[in-house]
């Protein structure tokens, strides 16, 4: 799957590329409006990540352009501005999602997966890792063919893990993913712990193997 990242901050651009490439994506990058529009005209991308404030133009115009020429390309807007108007305009123009800087790379990855899944009707309907199968459409998960009884939060957590498999996920990023950013830290970190404990128990009861490891108290990693 090929992605285009249009972001003028070199360092941030590089971070995204690095994280997403490790997840199996091919990434092209553009640092300004003109490079971005040229590359969009030349090639076809599965999904485009676009910043709104770019040297040489407004990212919203790129969204418009893309919607006109390649309506099946997924679009995620990344912006430092949390302006409601931009968000509404962006989504109205046809962007699939809107992320406000600063964001967790794991969150970006999860959103990207979700956009691709939603757009790609003919694609993969099940995510398989080891003996685990996750069906995003029906929000179900099977271990060795047996259905797991998960709460909504546990399922979300599992999907987040699966999407970011083999990556260290911090408690903060998990908390924000599950509860949004209005919940302040300390309380939600306890929840994360509780939910992970429950999810582990359910996975172990169904399959015998615990795929979630704690990494030096830094976070959690899901791997088979």
């Amino acid at each position, binding site marked *: 799957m090929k992605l285009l990242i249009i972001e003028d901050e070199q360092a941030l651009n590089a971070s995204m590329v690095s994280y997403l490439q490790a997840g199996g994506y091919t990434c092209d990058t553009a640092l300004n409006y003109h490079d971005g529009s040229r590359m969009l005209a030349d090639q076809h991308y599965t999904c485009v990540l676009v910043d709104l404030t770019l040297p040489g133009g407004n990212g919203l115009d790129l969204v418009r352009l893309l919607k006109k020429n390649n309506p099946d390309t997924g679009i995620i807007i990344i912006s430092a501005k949390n302006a409601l108007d931009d968000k509404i305009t962006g989504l109205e123009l046809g962007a699939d999602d809107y992320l406000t800087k600063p*964001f*967790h790379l794991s969150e970006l990855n999860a959103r990207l997966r979700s956009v691709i899944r939603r757009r790609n009707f003919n694609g993969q309907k099940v995510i398989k890792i080891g003996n685990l199968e996750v069906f995003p459409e029906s929000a179900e998960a099977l271990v060795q063919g047996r259905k797991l009884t998960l709460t909504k939060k546990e399922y979300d957590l599992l999907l987040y893990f699966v999407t970011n498999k083999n990556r260290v996920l911090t408690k903060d990023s998990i908390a924000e993913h599950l509860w949004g950013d209005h919940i*302040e830290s300390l309380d939600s970190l306890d929840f994360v712990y509780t939910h992970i404990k429950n999810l582990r128990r359910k996975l172990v009861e169904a399959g015998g193997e615990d795929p979630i490891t704690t990494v030096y108290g830094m976070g959690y990693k899901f791997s088979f």
Partner: protein
Amino acid sequence: MRILTKTSLYYLLVSVIVFLLGGLSFYKILQTEIYDEVDDQLFTDKENIIEYIRSHNELPNVTSGISEAIIVRETSAHAGALEALSDTLIFSTYDEEYVPFRKLTFTTYQDGKPFEYTILKSLMDFEDLFESTMLAMAWIFVLLLIGLAGVNYFINKYNWRNFYDTLERAKRYSLTQRKPLLLKPTDTQEFQELNEVLQAMTGKIHNDYLNLKEFTENASHEIQTPLAIVGSKLELFMQSDNLTQAQASMLEEMHASINRLSRLNRSLILLTRIENREFSENEVIPLHELLQEQLDQLHEMMLMHDIQVEIEAMQPVFVEMNIGLCEILISNLLLNAIRHNSTGGIIRISLKADELCIKNSGEPLQEEPVTLFERFRSGNKLSGSMGIGLALVSKISELYQLTPSYTYEEGLHVLRLKFQKNIS
């Protein structure tokens, strides 16, 4: 006391003193004049009588004088009071009252025999004149006083109107309205100066405020990108395979701090945007539904702290607000009630047509309740809150003319939100 009342009162006071002193001297002068006049007449009569006796060598006809009565009495040669003036009261059978008289007693000789003359003159007419004059004076005084006080009042009122206008505008002036203070020009020099000073002062404050706000806004926005970079690099760093335990815990701490900073910055941006009135799209929100929704979302958190929720009242209430802000408002109030609660505590919620009341158990406040709605006020440092939640509540409330208040009743923290624009 208003300046108009004050000047009017001073004016009245001075007028009364001046008129009283004036009246008193007028009375004294008039009285002296009358006595002089009466005494003159009495002495003239006396001269006439003596002259008459000398030329005619007989006692004059008593009715011929100007005076009301002349009493002649033969007297012994020794008792010779030569001349005496005095006041006396004589009972008048006609008027049935005592009438004041002026009396001149003198002794004269006819054929070597002493005669005592007493000339009496009624003061009644003078007294009447005196009374009417004083009454007229009093009336003039009262009318003049009322007239002058009235004129003074209206002139003052007219002169001060510009001042009151300025005062009213200055009172209504708010930095957040983003308009300079406009004052009516006036031809009174002092007021014009006041206006200019006020305008210059507010202009300066307004500019400083805008600069500060712009700085905060820009700083908050500009911080976003570096935060994103540091955060993403840390996240990538964490993916490294050969980290030691010590490195990992350093990374974890850095990451947590960056997150905290990001959240803080986001809240500050939100506050700024509320102040900038960026949330203009309002809609009618069923508050009872939104409250229930938020309660459901926070259910988990309450379970975790073993907090019981008691709904005392949940009436359908509709408010016109921006939905996003309304959610922030309610969730912050509820989060506050959870965060400052004790394990096994309670939260009592009552939503009525005119107010939302959230009570929660917990330790009493360590500080003044008034500071509660300010930024970075966090009653309990252990709770990990940044003290921005209630500042948000306060800002949002201000925007929609809701009145938040805090009290501590029967061991419960009580946060009330009074609605005004209720359209249920």
